[in-house]
């Protein structure tokens, strides 16, 4: 393989020489390219919707979208009020004013529901009245008592608009993305069958619309704040908006922090302006170009791609550090910038290329993910890494050649700094006691595996937020008091028109509404369930002089059909929420607690089973956010498997190419898998689950940690050619590349550990794990790799083979 390495070395030398000859052209081209990309940046968007995790053809998403097409959105912004003095007339007046103001001020409003307009179906003598609960505002305490008694008669309100203990009152706001039609296009609306060519992302609320609505609601709430009424704000769209705000917050702190860390290390390492300015320029410009490409192709910033900017800053610095270290060493001796950079790139070009490729491959493994937003990262992140390489290889030499750089003083050769003494010790220990070192490593790996055993898959968006975040506090409150805050939807397809009007089916719906909240499986107990049966029961009761015993399903199909006509005649549009046009498909809505979707995997199976027995012959479909999350977990599992296998295979192949020896490469990959096992052990100890934020850590880390191994093995190959003695070879390797490995690892580590300051818990976990992995990887490269090399070479020598 030496001839391959030599060819690459020569190629890098020729390329750098060309750049030096045409330095101004190179500078102009790179700045021009950057300019074009930066111009795209205003187009960049953020997408924190749950649907963003799915491909458009995912069956679970299609089912969910079909449900939304038919019945409207199940997402609601929920404003929960806790009046200190309970439900008084004054509070109801306040509620009415708040309800009205929200109705006026919230954009994209589809529906707002609260006790103010809660449906009241009652009889007054011979008249059926369908009205809003507060249409007749209680003027005195007696009327208030009557109103509360009315509320008691309508189970529909419980846990949705008012808690069972009457301590909480909620306002639910549903919104829909409706693009206003310009006046010029109005008249075209008479044309029939205009096809709906909108993408799904345009049909439903986008991130910016959720954010706009959230802000409008918060503005109204801020004007209504008072000491005697606590206010809480939750609901899936509110979570989406909060997630976006959190991502923006973290980006605005973590990216500058990453840049600051890079800046600090460069200053400490090189102690000169060029040593700081050039790498930072290269990295920042490549980052901006990457973001520009994202904007250009319409890739949004998501929970996953938000990691990209800090990652690219930290990782991109490493390339420059390796090259600049060698450049300065040669320049200090020779005083010739051009020759120095040509030699530096000649020597370090191939390892820098290989480290970029392995990092890119680790990231590219995400392309095969079944989670759409992970796949997006798989496309853009490798581009970012390779762009950083391109900028390093072209812009860096151009800057060096154009701008003045002080030569500096060569370091005295006879001194043995502290670092070298440590490296000497490491070389001695690992080459003289290779089995001990390997044995200790094996024991540690075993312990890590044991610690990793409790690690589980998970998906719980709320847990990404800090415990004190508003949306988490609000959702926890609703779960605690009402028993639920998120919807699960069941579609019951009877198979024929008017199938829902059959008394047995309607009775089945009524029974299901009572039985489902009593079911408890795997720690999940839902709060309530409701359907068309509730409307029929309310109407039937009103038809029978409001007698409680008439709150039941009639056993006459014709009466059920006529009661529905009666309800329609009242002018209420509520029926379209419960059944399709032909009364073939009915909807059963379930209010459920917001907990880990992994728990729902089994619960949903039980629920499906129960419903299939309750409605024999009907097609039962579970949809809504909860089944979507359950599917997401399955997608996470398969994505992880595909990603890890791809990363392992490709990176191993690259290592073999780089190192030139198959079994040394395979052996070094064992050392590189060790940090991943170590990270899994940390996850087990800290109860960190495998979810969207942590699932990718393995592939990401693999791509990063092999970088140091590549540098080590590249330098070791040369050192061993000159010094066949293992101890000397390892020592010389560490002398030549050890510092750079430590520096780059420290930069990576520090960069990732800045995520510990993040607002989102998911980012904190990501930072902890990747930072820890880097430390473990460095330790593995310094101890385990030399030990295993010693054993390998000893074994080969004993066999009589040339190592």
């Amino acid at each position, binding site marked *: 393989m030496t001839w391959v390495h030599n060819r690459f070395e020569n190629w890098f030398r020729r390329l750098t020489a060309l750049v030096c000859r045409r330095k101004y052209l190179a500078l102009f081209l790179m700045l021009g390219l950057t300019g074009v990309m930066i111009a795209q940046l205003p187009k960049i968007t953020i997408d924190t919707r749950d649907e963003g995790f799915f491909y458009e053809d995912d069956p679970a998403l299609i089912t969910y979208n079909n449900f939304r*097409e*038919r019945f409207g959105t199940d997402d609601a912004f929920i404003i929960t009020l806790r009046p200190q003095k309970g439900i008084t007339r004054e509070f109801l007046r306040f509620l009415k004013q708040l309800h009205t103001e929200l109705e006026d001020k919230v954009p994209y*409003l*589809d529906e707002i529901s609260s006790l103010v307009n809660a449906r009241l179906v009652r009889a*007054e003598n*011979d*008249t*059926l*009245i*369908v*009205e809003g609960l507060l249409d007749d505002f209680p003027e005195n305490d007696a009327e208030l008592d009557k109103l509360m008694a009315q509320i008691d008669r309508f189970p529909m309100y419980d846990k949705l608009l008012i808690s069972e203990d009457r301590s909480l009152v909620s306002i639910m706001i549903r919104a*829909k993305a*409706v*693009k*206003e*039609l310009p*006046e*010029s*296009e*109005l*008249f*075209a*609306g*008479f044309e*029939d*069958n*205009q096809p*709906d060519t*909108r993408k799904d992302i345009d049909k439903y609320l986008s991130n910016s619309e959720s954010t706009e609505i959230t802000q409008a609601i918060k503005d109204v709430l801020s004007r209504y704040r008072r000491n005697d009424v606590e206010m809480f704000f939750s609901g899936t769209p509110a979570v989406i908006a909060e997630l976006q705000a959190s991502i923006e917050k973290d980006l605005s702190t973590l990216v500058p922090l990453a840049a600051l860390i890079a800046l600090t290390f460069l200053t400490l390492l090189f102690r000169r302006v060029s040593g700081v300015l050039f790498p930072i320029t290269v990295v920042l410009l490549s980052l901006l170009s990457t973001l520009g490409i994202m904007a250009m192709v319409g890739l949004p910033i998501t929970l996953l791609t938000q990691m990209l900017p800090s990652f690219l800053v930290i990782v991109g610095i490493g390339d420059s550090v390796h090259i600049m270290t060698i450049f300065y060493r040669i320049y200090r001796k020779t005083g010739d910038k051009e020759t120095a950079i040509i030699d530096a790139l000649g020597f370090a070009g191939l390892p820098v290329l290989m480290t970029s490729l392995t990092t890119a491959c680790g990231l590219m493994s995400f392309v095969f993910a079944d989670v759409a937003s992970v796949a997006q990262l798989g496309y853009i992140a490798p581009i970012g890494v390779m762009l950083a390489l391109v900028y390093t290889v072209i812009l860096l030499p151009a800057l060096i050649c154009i701008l003045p750089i002080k030569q500096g003083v060569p370091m005295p050769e006879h001194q043995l700094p502290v670092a070298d003494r440590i490296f000497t010790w490491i070389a001695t220990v690992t080459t003289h006691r290779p089995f001990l070192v390997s044995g200790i490593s094996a024991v540690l790996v075993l312990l890590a595996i044991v610690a990793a055993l409790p690690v589980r898959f998970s998906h719980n968006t709320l847990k990404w937020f800090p415990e004190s975040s508003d949306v988490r506090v609000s959702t926890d409150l609703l779960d605690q008091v009402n028993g639920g805050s998120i919807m699960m939807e069941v579609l019951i397809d009877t198979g024929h*028109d*008017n199938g829902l*009007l059959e008394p047995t089916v309607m009775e089945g719906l009524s029974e299901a509404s009572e039985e489902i909240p009593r079911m408890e499986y795997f720690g999940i107990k839902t709060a309530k369930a409701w359907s068309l049966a509730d409307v029929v029961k309310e109407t039937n009761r009103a*038809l029978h002089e409001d007698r409680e015993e008439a709150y039941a399903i*009639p056993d*006459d*199909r*014709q*009466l*059920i*059909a*006529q*009661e529905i*006509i*009666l309800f*329609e*005649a*009242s*002018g*209420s*549009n509520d*029926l*379209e929420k419960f059944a*399709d*046009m*032909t*009364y*073939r498909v009915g909807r059963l809505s379930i209010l459920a607690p917001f907990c880990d979707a992994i728990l729902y995997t089994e619960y949903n199976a039980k629920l499906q089973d129960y419903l299939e027995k309750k409605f024999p012959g009907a097609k039962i479909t579970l949809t809504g956010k909860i089944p979507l999350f359950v599917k997401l977990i399955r997608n996470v599992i398969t994505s992880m498997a595909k990603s890890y296998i791809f990363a392992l295979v490709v990176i191993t192949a690259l290592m073999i190419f780089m190192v030139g020896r198959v079994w040394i490469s395979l052996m070094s990959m064992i050392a590189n898998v060790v940090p991943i096992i170590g990270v899994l052990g940390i996850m087990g100890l800290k109860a960190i689950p495998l979810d969207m934020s942590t699932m990718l850590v393995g592939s990401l880390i693999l791509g990063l940690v092999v970088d140091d191994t590549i540098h080590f093995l590249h330098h070791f190959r040369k050192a061993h050619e000159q010094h066949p003695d293992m101890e000397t070879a390892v020592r010389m390797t560490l002398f030549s590349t050890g510092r750079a490995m430590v520096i780059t690892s420290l930069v990576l580590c520090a960069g990732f550990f800045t995520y510990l300051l993040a607002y989102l818990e998911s980012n904190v976990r990501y930072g902890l794990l990747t930072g820890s992995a880097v430390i473990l990887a460095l330790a593995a490269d310094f101890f385990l790799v030399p030990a295993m090399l010693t054993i390998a070479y000893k074994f080969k020598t004993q066999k009589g083979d040339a190592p």
Partner: protein
Amino acid sequence: MKVLGYAFISALLVLNTLMGAAWAEDPEARSIMEKVDARDDGNRSISDMQMVLINKQGRKRVRELRSYGIDKGDDHLSLMFFLSPADVSDTGFLTYDYDTPDKEDEQWLYLPALKKTKRIAAGDKSGSFMGSDFSYADLTSRRVDDYKYSFNKQQREAVVYGKKVWVIDAIPKDEKIVTETGYKRAIVFVRQDNLVIVRAIYFPEDGNTIKYYDVKGLELIDNIWTATEIHMTTKKGKVTEHKTILTFSNVKYDQESVNEDLFTTRRLEKGP
């Protein structure tokens, strides 16, 4: 029968121009609408009506009704019986539509399965009629003085199904009319030859949808221009949410059998 083609809407649109200019009425447009209001739309009518409700997925619900109508001074009485589907056959619906704003309209529904008539508190007219895209406001007479009229700024005239029409904006004069009818604005297309509203665009108060009223069939029956097929489509943006098609057949006016005695709860309970 109060022809459904004579559905004119009132809506109040606060027309905020950049200069905040107030919306002004055009006397010529008003004069046209007064003539539309005064047009003879027939009395003592009997007709068969088919109502087809179509959702976004193209699924249909079909109902057949027999309808009777009579003018009583400025008020209008109507009686409908469901003929199909079988589950609701013989269900009757009686309406007293009072012209004066102070008097609330009255409605009764007869349920044959219970052999009971129930009065329905109608409330405002913005609610949907029998789950269709038509609201009660669409089906009852509108007071011409409740609105301000002007010619549409985009098109003063147009051609609809080969006939010239005026295009007139109708804006409710006050918020009460908006709340009562559920509409904040309408654009009506009035045929110049026979003063029939053949098309209209309605703007519901919530601002999320737009409704398109389209008379696809218009015939001269007993010298009365009668809409025989009307489509009402509810759209969000460009996309159809759902649609209702009303088809009228066997329309007859001035029927001896249609008198005020027909429009009673007693008669309602007897069926068609």
